[in-house]
């Protein structure tokens, strides 16, 4: 590395370590994609506006203590297009997405609220099916729907239906999770094959003439988290739901939050062959594709084996894998050892390959 290159690399890393500024004149689809534009919106506009320590932590769910009881609170909106896709639908997603954000905070889901924004002209049968999907998913996740709201907007002012859910959970006593506590030597796990949900949605839109049976992985992750807390509780550093932006975004956020480096072995990352094939044809990396039933686990090395074994006992996490390790340097960066034997940076996504994925 020449001095010029080293200097430029230094400038880039200094710039990246600063809180992103929100400087755009208008909202574009990129702000919703879960990548760098989303970060600038959240960290540049929203977080500074509210000056709230619980929000500053930028976890999947906020930690709130009420009269000594440790609670987790989170909210999420669902605008997925199409509303039904192989493996799930907007109703199921709306429950699992919020339940999973709670689970990532080490919290057992207790209650959900459900808010519906409906487009004038929506067939009642479509709505009925989604309400049933919500009910089924809530029963599976063992969470109660306790409050709700309905609004209707003129035809053309929404796309069929949008769903918002807010979730309340009870933080499990075995959990001591924090995104800032990763240290060198820690192991990185994923709970299953990556990239299925985003690829399933993309193919369901019928924009590509690709025929493949790819099914969304949407599911409640609490059972997997429960098993982890039971068998590796003390060694767990952090859990992150790998939704928009995929596993790559999660790893980058964690590396920056803890001031560590990560080295991921590409050949160890589980990807279904159909997903790998579709991603190859479309020129996208499955690590950047959204999941709705896969999370990233950072765990102390001595607990990694137990964590992996516990995960693999849970339905839906049978193919959990250790994909990498935490290192000291280069700080804040995620590097990949490619299956070919070279190395590269794995950054957050900039553009927006797949809008309205959840």
């Amino acid at each position, binding site marked *: 590395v020449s001095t010029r290159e080293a200097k430029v*690399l230094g400038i880039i890393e200094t710039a990246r370590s600063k809180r992103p500024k929100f400087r755009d004149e208008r909202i574009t689809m990129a702000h919703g994609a879960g990548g760098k534009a989303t970060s*600038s919106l959240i960290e540049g506009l929203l977080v500074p506006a509210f000056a709230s320590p619980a929000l500053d932590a930028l976890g999947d769910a906020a930690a709130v203590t009420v009269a000594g009881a440790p609670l987790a609170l989170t909210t999420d909106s669902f605008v997925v297009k199409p509303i039904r896709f192989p493996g799930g639908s907007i109703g199921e997603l709306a429950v699992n997405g919020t339940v999973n954000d709670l689970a990532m905070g080490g919290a057992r889901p207790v209650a959900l609220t459900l808010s519906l924004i409906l487009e004038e002209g929506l067939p009642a049968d479509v709505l009925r099916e989604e309400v049933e999907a919500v009910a089924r998913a809530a029963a599976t996740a063992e969470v109660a729907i306790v409050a709700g709201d309905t609004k209707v907007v003129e035809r053309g002012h929404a796309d069929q239906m949008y769903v918002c859910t807010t979730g309340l959970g009870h933080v499990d006593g075995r959990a001591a999770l924090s995104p800032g506590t990763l240290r060198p030597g820690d192991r990185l796990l994923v709970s299953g094959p990556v990239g299925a949900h985003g690829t399933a949605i993309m193919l369901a839109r019928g924009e*590509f003439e690709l025929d493949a049976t790819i099914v969304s992985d949407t599911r409640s992750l609490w059972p997997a988290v429960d098993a982890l807390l039971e068998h590796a509780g003390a060694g767990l550093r952090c859990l992150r739901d790998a939704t928009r932006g995929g596993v790559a975004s999660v790893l980058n956020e964690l590396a920056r939050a803890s001031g560590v480096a990560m080295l991921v072995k590409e050949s160890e990352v589980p990807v279904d062959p159909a997903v790998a094939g579709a991603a190859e044809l479309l020129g996208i990396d499955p690590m950047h594709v959204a999941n709705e039933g896969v999370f990233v686990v950072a765990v102390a090395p001595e607990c990694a084996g137990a964590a992996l074994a516990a995960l693999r006992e849970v339905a839906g996490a049978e193919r959990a894998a250790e994909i990498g390790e935490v290192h000291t*340097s*280069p700080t804040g960066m995620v590097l990949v050892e490619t299956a070919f*034997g070279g190395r590269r940076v794995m950054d957050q996504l*900039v553009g927006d390959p797949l809008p309205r994925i959840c």
Partner: protein
Amino acid sequence: VKYVDEFRDAALGRTLAAEILGAVEPGRHLKIMEVCGGHTHSIYKYGVDDLLPTNVELVHGPGCPVCVIPMGRVDDGIAIAREPGVILTCFGDMMRVPGSDGTLLEAKAEGADVRMVYSPLDALRIAKSEPDREVVFFAIGFETTAPSTALTLKRAKAEGITNFSCFCNHVTIVPPLRALLDSPDLRLDGFIGPGHVSTVVGARPLEFIPADYGKPVVVSGFEPVDILQSVLMILRQLGEGRCEVENQYKRVVPYEGNLRALEIMAEVFALRPHFEWRGLGFISHSGLRLSDAYADLDAERRFAVPGVRVADPKACQCGEVLKGVIKPYECKVFGSACTPERPIGTCMVSSEGACAAYYNYGRFAREREVV
């Protein structure tokens, strides 16, 4: 993935790396240009540099379709998109290329109907399903993508679809290569030839490089094993004192090219007298327009486009990057004022651009160990 994984095989990569090490003349620094942005992308994505000796340097070339589009043409595209009733369709990367007043993505947020497509046929499909709208396809690319645009236009004509037109920005690979070889500020030892372009035009049009300029060329596939093998073939030519066009990508590239594709291109397109390239200026006979027989489908005739030449931003050095004169990090604004989130130059936008590839994949000190 079958037929792909074989060409990403780590063991094969190591074998080739060892052979390259044996074939390279110690102490001699070699510069090999990969012409194609697809190669640049692969090199960074797979970390091919990690398997090459330090005295074999890969220099990035001009073959990136998005990178070579000048700002004025982006402005023209945005002007078309803002016409009432128009749906402008383009490839995803094109939406983020800055014109003199914003990008297509920003025009979309301001109300223009800009849609991303994966092929020109998708654009034609939109035209058929929305007969009340004017659908324009923003066509870019070298000879690789020109045939699919040509086929789409042929189909539009055959089916009598009148609400479809093409804003043609297709370019050809030989003129910029010649310009590059004529430029005094670059010393290259060989070329990794453009694989995808050659599937269409064949390997024959590259013969001028060894014949007129005395440099070896190996037409290469895009997987990391392909690229290493091509480097090895170039080193062997140099070692044996040969200088010719060789074809590493025989599984796809016929020497004579795809005659059917060339025929369709000849029917639908005509050479422009000159065309402006980002950072490289005007190059004679380097761009394609629609032929007179297809003039009715030419968006430049259907809409009033400004057609103004816009100078590149002063700080932007995309031209030097495209010519391989400087490395991405040697550009004055790389990584500071120009980033993938907020690009100034095209090379930072396209996934095939050298700056984006280096920023996204190569942005770390290679010899430094991960500890």
